[in-house]
């Protein structure tokens, strides 16, 4: 059942080449739409029917997002692909760019057609040089073959697509910061509303979707929304890419239907490394609260199951930790990340992320104080939900998760000035 959507070409020799993509019917969905002059509404309805939820982490229904844009509003509109894959633990979009760039291009052109946009940007994470080059090469091929450009296949529909390489800021993965960055400004999130659907790139209506979401579109339209939806479970339609890493035998990206038990995913990744025992799992990228290993082994990989366990599926970045890990150290590292990556625009995040890190760092380095855990608890409530974008929440949630499930390790650290483990 695996590799049905974004990875369905992984068995090919060099799947990133146009010729190989086309050998399996690539771009036929697009040409079909253009020839039939299929109505944009029917495309959006099909996407809605698929139950596809944004694969970047927030899980917002893609079809619904598209329907926010009125296709008939005059003026420029944009399709933007968010390939600024920066969440620690996430590396799935990189493989879409590397192995299936044409499916993404096809998806973006279709998205442009559906919302009436004639221009698209793919914002690629700055460190992704190789995927960037491969995507650029694919763009060249697509352009040469007439899948991009003016009056595609005599349909009267124009679509041009550009890639834009980021410069190494996590915050540019936040969609409005990403737009600012494309506009040549400092990558800082905008206050919302207005949302990009109304005031997006250069102030024009814009849809921004994750790489995996857009790359799923051609398959959804080829096989039908219902087919896609049926791959997954209730409220979590389709299959999804999971980047699994940590103390496991074979870290990597796996496409599995949503609702697959975590234990199966772990097995696909070769199980725990060197027979170690699972301690905890961060199921959706570093900002997702940690779940104890035992509990995780009972869960299925879908939006609702993970949410019910107090965490989130996020971008599908599964970080598996074995018992050798000191949770204080793990949290210290993650907090440092958010401290380093806060854009500094709004107060709670700018000041709070540094403070969180410093308190956790002093616990880790044996300088913790008994009142520190209460301070951390309190501080996270003053950051989460009080900021312009979700980075504040992302910085607060891992702290809350760790203190919820592994508080005794922190207490031990403070009392004994050393780790409980190892």
């Amino acid at each position, binding site marked *: 059942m695996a590799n049905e959507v974004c990875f369905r070409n992984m068995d090919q020799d060099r799947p990133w080449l146009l010729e190989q993509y086309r050998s399996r019917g690539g771009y036929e969905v697009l040409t079909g739409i253009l020839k039939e002059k299929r109505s944009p509404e029917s495309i959006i309805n099909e996407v809605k029917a698929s139950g596809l939820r944004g694969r970047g982490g927030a899980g917002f229904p893609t079809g619904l997002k598209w329907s926010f844009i009125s296709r008939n509003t005059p003026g420029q509109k944009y399709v933007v692909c968010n390939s600024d894959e920066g969440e620690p633990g996430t590396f799935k979009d990189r493989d879409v760019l590397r192995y299936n760039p044409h499916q993404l291009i096809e998806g973006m052109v279709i998205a442009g057609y559906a919302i009436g946009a004639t221009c698209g940007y793919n914002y690629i994470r700055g460190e992704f040089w190789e995927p960037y080059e491969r995507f650029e090469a694919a763009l060249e091929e697509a352009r040469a073959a007439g899948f991009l450009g003016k009056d595609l296949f005599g349909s009267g529909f124009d679509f041009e697509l550009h890639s834009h390489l980021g410069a190494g800021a996590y915050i540019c993965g936040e969609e409005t910061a990403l737009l600012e960055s494309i506009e040549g400004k400092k990558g800082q999130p905008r*206050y919302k509303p207005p949302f990009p659907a109304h005031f997006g790139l250069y102030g024009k209506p814009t849809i921004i979707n994750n790489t995996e979401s857009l790359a799923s579109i051609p398959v959804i339209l080829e096989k039908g929304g219902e087919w896609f939806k049926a791959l997954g479970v209730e409220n979590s339609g389709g299959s999804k890419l999971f980047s699994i890493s940590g103390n496991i035998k074979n870290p990597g990206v796996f496409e599995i239907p949503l609702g697959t038990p975590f234990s199966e995913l772990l097995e696909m990744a070769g199980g725990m490394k060197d027979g170690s025992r699972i301690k905890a799992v961060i199921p959706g990228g570093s900002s997702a609260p940690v779940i104890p290993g035992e509990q995780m082994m009972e869960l299925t990989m879908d939006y609702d199951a993970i949410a019910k366990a107090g965490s989130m599926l996020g971008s599908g970045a599964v970080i598996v930790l074995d018992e050798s890990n000191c949770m204080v150290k793990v949290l210290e590292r993650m907090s440092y990340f958010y401290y380093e990556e806060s*854009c*500094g*625009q709004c*107060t709670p995040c700018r000041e709070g*992320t540094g403070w969180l890190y410093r308190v956790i760092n002093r616990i880790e380095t044996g300088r913790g104080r008994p009142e520190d855990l209460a301070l951390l608890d309190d501080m996270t409530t003053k950051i989460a939900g*009080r*900021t312009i974008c979700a980075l504040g929440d992302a910085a607060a949630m891992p702290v809350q998760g760790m203190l919820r499930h592994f508080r005794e390790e922190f207490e031990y650290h403070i009392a004994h000035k050393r780790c409980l483990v190892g």
Partner: protein
Amino acid sequence: MSDDQMVTIEVDGRELKAKAGTLLIEVTDAAGISVPRFCYHKKLSVAANCRMCLVEIAKVPKPMPACATPVNQGMQVFTRSPAALAAQKGTMEFLLINHPLDCPICDQGGECELQDIALGYGNDASRFVEGKRVVPKRDIGPLIATDFTRCIHCTRCVRFGAEIAGIRELGATGRGEHVEIGTYIEKSVDSEMSGNIIDICPVGSLTSKPFLYSARAWELVQRKSIAPHDSVGSNINLHVRRNQVMRVHPRDNEEVNECWISDRDRFSYEGLSSVDRLTHPLIRKGDKWIEADWQDALDAAAQGLKKARGTSGNRLGALVSPGSTLEELYLAQKLMRGLGSENIDFRIRQGDFRGEEPAFPWLGQTIAQLDELNAALLVGSNIRKEQPILAHRLRKAALEGADISFITPLELDTNYRATQVVNSPAGMISDLAAVARALGGSGGLIDGAEIGDAHRAIAEQLKSAAKATVLLGNLAVAHPDYSLIQGLASVIAGKSGAVLGYLPEAANSVGARLSGAMPGTGGSNAQEMLSNPHKGYLLMGVEPGLDFWNPAKSMETLGQAEFVVALSAFRSESLEQVADVILPIASFAETSGTYVNAQGEWQSFSGAVAPAGESRPAWKVLRVLGNLLDVAGFNQVSSEDVLAEVRQLAGDMKPENSAVNGIENEALLAGTGLTRIGDVPIYAADPLVRRAAALQKTRDAIKASARLNPNQAKIAGLADGDQAVVKQDKSSAVLQVVIDPAVPDGCVRVPAGLAGTETLGGQIGNVTLEKA
């Protein structure tokens, strides 16, 4: 506003009505409900970054920023509920963790928004025990002191630059807690409106450099006044301690200066206490100046004038500064007329007196109406540096899409999209004639004008705009063919349906006319008085070498007079060369008086401090002189009495810019050879600002120089930095050559009003240039 646009919301149990979509903080502010904030500013875009104004809204799970939340029907808001207070206090704790809390040594202490709000929302002890952030000191110029360690990153200053000043000089660089405000590349902040960031900075990051460490806010007494440097009449507050003006702040007046003032109005107060202040009457004894008491000095002045007058009042002339108050100007002309002289004028920088002039020329519209223009043509005006607040108004119109164009002898640095037709002063006349012709005008020069694309475009813009204006600036007034410019502008305005407006140069250029400080029938105007020697002169508030259109000629003429009495607040080299008695007078801050601004609004003010030393308000000096000279009608006991007289005479006058006919006049300025463009730089405009130490250190405070474009310099065989002899009429000056691409071919920019230019002729005229 129709009712259907109005919504009813509830704030803290109070029912409030507001227009749908208004930002919540505007509604609470209007209702007097205090919501703490730092980044919000009514004149700037919404940033929502400080998170201090978080409030609770029913049915919304998270606290919302009041500054960014539009109101809608039935919204239920709690600004002081436990949830709202928890959010506000949480933000305050974060704001304070890296703030140095150095209030005792911070100039903002006592008037600091952070300090004030921390009192209400902060804790008395911090839970933050780590080291605090420190930001290195940055020098951004002579006006603004910085201490970015105190910064709370509200970005008001950054947004001010982008949105109001129109030049992005400050930005936020870095990420997270390393965000810093700065210029990125080491440079100064040079906007002519830069000082406003001192006011909008909620903490002590941006403070006044001249004021630094000189007084605490609570030692200052605030006194209302009116800014004395341009015709905006910006409303200001003088902050006084122990009889000294310590600093100047804007006073809100939405119809005039909104909440802003120019740097010139903010920092010129330094001149009030300059070492040049004249604190005793002076009487010339041979080559020496003797300090005298008032009795002797007034006697000497009266005797001197009486003697010079002899049997005919027409032997006397008076030249008065348009920066004087209405009361001063009125009494000066009354004195002259009482002595039988019709020779009095304030138009000391005007280059051509052939034209007829309206009785009450003004902006032609209100200051606020400039915001709503759809098109404007500015003739001979570097409005940004002449009247910064009016330039800001015009910029607002430009950002809304207005077509602003300039016919200018210097390429201007406009902070918005504008069309500039840059031409030599003689060429400007042709350009105006061409625009007039494109609009269907005829007669005089117009008939032969060659119409280019730019002229046609300007004509079209003015004609098609719903609200258009043609404005004449300082370089138009100083033009030797000003009467032609006026005539052509009248035609352009008339044919296009645009409003003709004047940009009066000084604080009381408009008031001076109302006061009667103009030559009467048979009287001499400024140009005549300063070229045909009279026996006696009365000068008020002027420095002859710097404030007159043709300083060389003026000095020569005044030098031939039998007697010159000057009323001056300052010692002045050129004044001392020509005067016989100098009477020390009070500055604008030290006297009560009235200015009439560009929109014809009479704005009276009181003295904020006592006059320096022995100086006295000029109206009092004039009043005593009137008594000593036995002139009738000098019995006023207060400036209000004087004002009442002016009101009686001119109070009913309505401003009007009737069209004037000057197009048949002969163009006097030759279009051949090299033409001097003698603009008056922003910080050389009047005796007070010329003595404001910090302003004189800014980049706008240029030194006397001969500025040429590279092509013209090549023709003249001159290079940047060379010394050149500038010869004008019979006089000359040696000046440094500066290469300046903004100067058109055939011209050399030799700014006026600067030390080193006193020996030169008219502000605009033919000159020769050679290597020294």
